[in-house]
């Protein structure tokens, strides 16, 4: 007994020690070889892998490899075909005349001018009762204008969009003589296209939805008036011979099904608002599908970059089934097939031998979750992951180390300080411009971003084709700032703090915790403002609290935040005055009727030059108004070990191009499916 206990007390720890040493030796020197796979490190984990529900970038890293959309952005950020071979965008415009006779007269007039049709982009026209329907070869608000100019203005009826803000799910209207269309819009309400004088209907509606109540906050009103109803449509020709990962063929039915899922109440897709203006999706034949829109919405084509789902696997499945099944085990058409998801650990994909552009070179792609920023860098240094999105200060070290390649480009995002324009402090545009000149943005870029950022000059990041290159950024000029503040009535008191009517210029600047850059920006800005006599209190809250308690309730003085934008130009939800409500994105309450008009215009034109004109003006107006203090557009950066990968991609003529990985406008990973490991011979 004595020796038994004694021995055990010695032998058991010895055993543990031996096991530890053995495992150490194996990890350090074991006989192993590198696998032909790409490991990507990520700080966060995907919430699910269903491309129409997931919202995180981590999820899209996976779903981008597993799925295809109808269209995609090419390396220069222009749209190109993916599952769609090609497409055409046309438009039906309906003009309402005061009588059927006038409509027939109009069509006779058009028939007489047939030689002009090509110039008018008109392919055909028809009359139906009071309506004259024009089928146009191109979409855009300005296309039918020339044709409409042929007719007497007094012979036509206007079309008004009437909006009812209500939470009611079922509202009954009869589409007929005076109502052309009814649709529910994602921002909680119904919209009606009313032909002719909207007043009688409005009065009727105001009786039905009398006062702002719990369920309806705004009385019905006309939000838009137009000369006609414009309905663009897209005809997609699909790529033949594409197969899902389970071998079934991909067809137009899948596109129609995906649209239904995007709109489904039960699925509640966060991308729904992009598809709400769709009137119908029509399958013409297995490889042709037509999408008709209710209104002009120029980002409509890019919205079809959304992943297409397999109808044969998902149709008729109850919503509860999705969560445990498809959302975690996606099946797509993409270059990689999903294999397994080890929670909080990794997602593994293997190559799709049957991919329509040919199989990728890599056997597998693994996305690893490593939440700690230090650990993720350590795992890169032991070559356990091949790249991750590196922070600015760390990139500095890698840039100067010849063993690494650093990739960096401007990201489609920007950081800003949003002023709550409902607060008296920030009412005066002079004050906001003064604040913009009081912050040393260059210093922020130099010391917080280590030069890996650019001063932001408004709402569009500079690499977008619609961004205005002619805007001059506010320069750091505290003298001018002080001058402007004096002018606006904020005089320095004896304690050095500015005040007006006895009220000191002091406010709370809030942001979320766990974001180093925002914290540092807040600290620096606090210090810059102190110098010109403005007292700032910096507070940081957990993300959940920050958003729901302050931002969504519009209950804050100023926030440090950033926007991550897509590649399309529509920023209606951030800047439209209709969105200056709690829980919407215009939480700074920016209201400018000119901006509202331009936002509409940018949505309703399809021509690049016209979109550009509207966007340039938008950016100029908003930058001048300074509802935000635009800080910087940061770089998206990544590091890789040298000589680990190269690109070998088809040149489109049956041959191959071999080149090193390079940065493109769409990121250095643009050709990821053609990456090839070049270090497989090496022992790890």
């Amino acid at each position: 007994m004595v020796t038994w206990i004694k021995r055990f007390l010695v032998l058991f720890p010895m055993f543990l020690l031996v096991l530890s040493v053995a495992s150490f030796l194996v990890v350090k020197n074991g006989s192993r070889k590198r696998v032909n796979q790409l490991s990507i490190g990520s700080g966060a984990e995907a919430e699910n892998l269903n491309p129409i529900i997931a919202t995180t970038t981590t999820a899209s890293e996976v779903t981008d490899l597993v799925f295809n959309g109808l269209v995609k952005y090419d390396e220069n950020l222009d749209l190109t075909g993916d599952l769609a071979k090609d497409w055409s965008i046309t438009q039906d415009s309906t003009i309402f005349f005061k009588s059927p006779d006038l409509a027939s007269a109009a069509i006779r007039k058009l028939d007489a001018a047939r030689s002009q049709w090509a110039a008018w982009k008109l392919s055909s026209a028809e009359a139906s009762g009071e309506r004259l329907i024009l089928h146009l070869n191109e979409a855009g608000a300005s296309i039918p204008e020339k044709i409409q100019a042929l007719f007497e203005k007094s012979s036509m009826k206007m079309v008004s969009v009437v909006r009812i803000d209500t939470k009611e799910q079922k509202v009954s209207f009869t589409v007929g003589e005076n109502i052309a269309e009814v649709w529910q819009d994602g921002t909680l309400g119904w919209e009606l296209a009313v032909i002719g004088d909207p007043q009688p209907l409005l009065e009727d509606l105001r009786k039905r939805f009398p006062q702002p109540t719990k369920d309806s906050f705004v009385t019905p009103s006309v939000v838009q008036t137009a000369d006609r109803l414009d309905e663009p449509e897209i005809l997609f020709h699909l790529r033949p011979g594409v197969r899902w990962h389970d071998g079934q063929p991909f067809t137009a039915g899948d596109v129609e099904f995906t649209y239904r899922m995007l709109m489904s109440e039960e699925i509640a897709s966060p991308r729904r608002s992009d598809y709400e203006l769709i009137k119908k999706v029509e399958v013409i034949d297995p490889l042709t599908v037509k999408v008709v829109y209710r209104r002009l919405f120029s980002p409509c084509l890019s919205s079809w970059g959304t992943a297409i789902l397999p109808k044969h696997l998902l149709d008729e499945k109850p919503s509860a089934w999705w969560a445990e099944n498809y959302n975690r085990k996606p099946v797509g058409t993409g270059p990689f097939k999903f294999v397994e998801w080890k929670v909080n650990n990794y997602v593994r994909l293997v190559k799709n031998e049957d991919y329509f552009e040919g199989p990728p070179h890599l056997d597998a792609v693994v996305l690893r979750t490593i939440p700690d920023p230090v650990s993720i860098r350590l795992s890169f240094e032991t070559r356990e992951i091949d790249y991750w999105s590196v922070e600015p200060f760390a990139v500095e070290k890698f840039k100067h180390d010849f063993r690494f390649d650093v990739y960096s480009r401007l990201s489609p995002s920007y950081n800003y300080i949003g002023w709550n324009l409902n607060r008296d402090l920030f009412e005066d545009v002079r004050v906001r411009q003064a604040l913009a000149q009081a912050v040393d943005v260059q210093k922020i870029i130099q010391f917080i971003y280590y030069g890996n950022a650019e001063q932001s000059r408004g709402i569009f990041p500079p690499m977008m084709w619609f961004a205005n290159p002619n805007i001059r950024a506010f320069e750091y000029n505290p003298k001018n700032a002080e001058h402007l503040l004096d002018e606006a009535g904020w005089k320095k008191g004896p304690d050095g703090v500015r005040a007006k009517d006895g009220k000191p210029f002091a406010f709370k600047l809030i942001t979320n915790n766990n974001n180093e850059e925002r914290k540092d920006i807040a600290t620096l800005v606090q210090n810059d403002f102190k110098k010109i006599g403005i007292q700032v209190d910096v507070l940081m809250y957990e993300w959940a609290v920050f958003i729901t308690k302050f931002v969504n309730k519009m209950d804050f003085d100023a926030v440090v935040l950033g926007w991550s934008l897509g590649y399309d130009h529509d920023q209606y939800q951030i800047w439209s005055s209709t969105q200056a409500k709690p829980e919407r994105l215009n939480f700074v309450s920016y209201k400018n009727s000119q901006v509202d008009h331009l936002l509409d215009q940018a949505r309703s034109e399809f021509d690049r030059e016209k979109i550009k004109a509207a966007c340039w003006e938008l950016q100029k107006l908003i930058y001048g108004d300074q509802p935000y203090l635009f800080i910087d557009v940061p770089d998206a950066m990544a590091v890789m070990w040298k000589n680990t990968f190269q690109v070998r991609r088809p040149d489109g003529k049956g041959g191959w191009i071999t080149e090193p990985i390079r940065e493109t406008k769409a990121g250095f990973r643009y050709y990821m499916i053609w990456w090839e490991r070049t270090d497989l011979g090496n022992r790890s």
Partner: protein
Amino acid sequence: MGTFIIRRLLISLVLLFVISVISFAILKLTPGGSQLWFQLNPKISQAAKENFIRKYHLDRPLYEQYYFIMTDLFGGRLLSSKDARPVIGKIGERLPATLRLNLVALLLEFGFGIPWGVYAARNWNMWKDRFGTFWAFVFIAMPNFWISYVICIFLVKYVNVAILGTSSFGVIYANPMEGFLDHFWHLLIPGTVLAIGGIASMSRYVRASTLETLGEDYIRTARAKGLDPTTVFYKHALRNSLRPVITMVGYLLPALLGASVIVESIFAYPGMGRLGWEALTERDYPVLVTLNLVGAVLVLIGNLIADVLYAVVDPRIRLE
């Protein structure tokens, strides 16, 4: 003893109810709501938000929400508000990894803590004991995120071995034994960090308990009778002083499922702590309430087992 156990079980049930109400109330007081995934996303429509709120009964009064959560939980239907997956499943898929890690940590605590404590007691008040005491407190005083980083950086930067996750990545081993040892290594390092304070506490506990036994009359008598001191120590003293240690088996239960957010995050280990942390930051009430309740159940059962074991190994104690 039977009535004791039954009474304890009944009291535990009442306690569990109170705990579930309190934890639900505390969580509900937290600002932030559970609709996080759609916050500040320009593409999410208001209708989708409303849908979500209805689906998780977030528009209902609190007591109804509590009722829904509890009935769903015991019906096994409770869904996470983050990804609509069953909560039981989410906990279940992390269970094996958590068990493995905590088992290794417990082995280290017992394997090193007990011998250390015994050694310290044998050398009581000599420099070896004082030295040991000093280091025991150093171990306890070390913030575990700090020691995690120190170990991480040392092993990766200077020894250049992989330590994160559950196994080395991007490589395959020819020999399955090597694969096993690789996995063990990935448990050992976070396990050591988790156990480091525990080893020291355990050694203090064993030391104190042994010293107490050594002061008992029967040991003095045995010594006075002229028995060999080593025999007295190992046979008489140690057996009795390790008794309270055996009862710690009861506390193993909650410890096995124990969680550390910080260590799991730093070592990228897929355990229960990260589930709780994610649930907290995302306001995933169903998961949080379940985790709290599971934790409480384990503590209560563990305590019960400890009490019963205590009575079993120590005939002087009677449960009433």
